[in-house]
């Protein structure tokens, strides 16, 4: 620990902590070198390649020089204590931070080699390729059918009603919901249970046939049975989609992901194979977190 303290950069930890709004239970004597990530942050078959990403909320810096590759058709889990910036970072990947006026993103973020934050980039096309599932199930107050058909209708994916029906059925099947709802497609989605709603949101996201699905704590509002179903679904989806999942449950990260990234105070501390992170973490902060010493 002392050797680490000597490698302190120009950071002032107390200020950074205040800015990131982090709980006080963090070990403050460990300091992370900015932009330095232990483990294996880079991959050969990168879907996303992100270099020196910084995110500012007004004056405060929520993400500090993060570099990371997200590999194709893999599940990567973002873990870390509350306020560590993992959700902020996730929302950069489909530019959901755009709607926040004071939020500024710097650095190079590329999807298949194309800059995500290029001013000429079509956000609609980006979001069609990078779908998202949110923390709380947020079905539209419409019928189950209309919820799933929403994206395909906007993007003109179906020419005929029959095509649309097929897309809806396929998406619901992939989300493991078809058998439960096939007889009541016209019922309102808000009448479903929480777990069903969340799987509907996943079906809605994959109905536009995205390449990547971002999931922001998708199970935090669900009971264990519904959580198990969603996790099963994630495992199935990982065969054809690249999935990025933010989670507070380390067991979940261990169960569903191939790689795990540990965030701390806006830094990306460690990235590695999930098994490696949970059995032999290299960084002591990662170790403290996964052994439950804080967070």
């Amino acid at each position, binding site marked *: 620990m002392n050797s680490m303290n000597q490698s302190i950069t120009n950071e002032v930890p107390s200020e950074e902590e205040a800015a990131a709004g982090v709980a006080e239970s963090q070990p403050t004597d460990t300091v992370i070198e900015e932009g330095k990530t232990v483990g294996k942050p880079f991959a050969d078959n990168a879907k996303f390649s992100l270099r020196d990403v910084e995110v500012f909320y007004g004056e405060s810096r929520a993400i500090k020089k993060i570099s990371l590759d997200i590999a194709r058709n893999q599940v990567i889990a973002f873990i870390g204590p509350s306020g560590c910036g993992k959700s902020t970072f996730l929302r950069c990947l489909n530019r959901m931070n755009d709607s926040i006026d004071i939020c500024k993103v710097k650095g190079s973020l590329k999807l298949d080699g194309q800059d995500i934050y290029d001013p000429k980039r079509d956000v609609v096309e*980006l979001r069609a390729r990078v779908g*998202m599932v949110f923390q709380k199930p947020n079905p539209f107050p419409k019928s189950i059918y209309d919820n799933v058909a929403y994206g395909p209708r906007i993007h003109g994916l179906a020419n005929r009603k029959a095509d649309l029906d097929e897309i809806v059925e396929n998406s619901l099947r992939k989300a493991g919901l078809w058998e439960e709802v096939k007889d009541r497609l016209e019922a*309102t989605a808000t009448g479903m249970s929480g777990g069903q709603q969340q799987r509907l949101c996943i079906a809605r996201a994959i109905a536009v046939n995205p390449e990547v699905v971002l999931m922001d704590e998708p199970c935090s509002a669900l009971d264990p049975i519904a959580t198990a179903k969603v996790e099963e679904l994630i495992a199935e989806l990982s065969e054809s989609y690249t999935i990025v999942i933010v989670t507070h449950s380390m067991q979940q990260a261990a169960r569903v992901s191939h790689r795990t990234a540990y965030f701390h105070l806006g830094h990306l501390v460690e990235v590695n194979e999930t098994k490696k992170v949970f059995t032999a973490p290299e960084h002591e902060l990662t170790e403290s977190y996964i052994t439950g010493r804080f967070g």
Partner: protein
Amino acid sequence: MQPANLLLLTLVLAVVAYGLGYARSRSLAMPLGGIRHLKSLPFYYGARAALWSGIPALIVLGCWAAFQGKVIQLIIIGGLPPELIPETEGQASLLLSKISNVASGALPAGFVEAPIAEAAERLKALREQSRLLMSALVVSVSVLAGFLGWLRIRPRLNARSQVESILKWLFFACAALAILTTVGIIFSVAFETFRFFGKVPFTEFIFGSQWSPQTALRADQVAAEGAFGMIPLFTGTLLISAIAMVVAVPVGLLSAIYLSEYANKRVRGVVKPLLEMLAGIPTVVYGFFAALTVAPFISDLAAAIGIEASSQSALAAGGVMGIMIIPFVSSLSDDVINAVPQTLRDGSLALGATQSETMKKVIFPAALPGIMGGVLLAVSRAIGETMIVVMAAGLAANLTANPLETVTTVTVQIVTLLTGDQEFDSAKTLAAFALGAMLFLSTLLLNVIALKIVRKYREQYD
């Protein structure tokens, strides 16, 4: 003592009772080892004593004030010599006002007959006695009841639940008062309306297309028969309200959408208060704006393109009324749109929908019941609006759908029927009540329909 002063005194006594009750509960609690051995907090014992002292006194005061006039009148009339006792109610009230004028000194006692002057003296004395008696009674009731309440304070007394239940009844009384007032208004309007229908047939009023309420005031006067067909008034109201809504709903709704979805915080902070300022302008100012600026402009414009338009038009009144109503629609819609959860917006945007697609397909449908509510509120505002119409649309009851002609509305006719010296049993005056009743019924119907619609959509979208 004057009733107002007496009211103040009862309040003071109640406060004193509160203090004494509070003190007594504390002093009872001290030997037991602190207020935690009381059944309730000292505040509740104090409040209970205050309520005991205040409420009976107020009831006595209210009853006395309500009935003393009538009782004194009966005594005075009963004391008159038999030849003066009035036969009809009209005579009685004339006589009583004469007596009370003498008593107050407005009419010198020398101008009237001796028995009346005598009665006036008695009236004065009775009033004085009544005041004294009332003061004594109210104060003693207050003190006695307060004392009883104070005396019955025991550590085991559950003052909290007693105060709660008294407060519950007080709140209920307030709610009942509002309802009773409404019922009273309905009955008084209904009564006069029935009298009107005794003079003018119901069917003529409902289906008549002619409105000219000029009737002869005296038998020897030469005047028109008077026509009481409400159709032109209601079509006028509908025409003007429709024009107003055509202006207000799109502008208000779209500005609400702009404010809630597109404008950044700074713009919103400036534009929203400015827009709401429109609601603060007195309607009479809108009225002369409509009459002196908009109406001439419209008639000039119409003349320029070769259409005939009168100098006062439904279009001018309706248009200006629409501008007046914009803030109602925009402010209410803005609130409703903002209340739609952010997660729905995010969900739609994350699927690649544009902002306007999100608005159109997700937010607007979800906010629709609330928006409908705002629009219907605006409609009832438009129907009830009078001043702009008086000034800019004229008084002529034309049955027309042409917005360039002068029309009149129900509310304007009610005003013109009831202003100035009126006989209270002529059909002309009573027509105002009939119109009011019809207006009330139609807005009631509108509200019922609105509630139905809102409920239907709510089932679909919640």
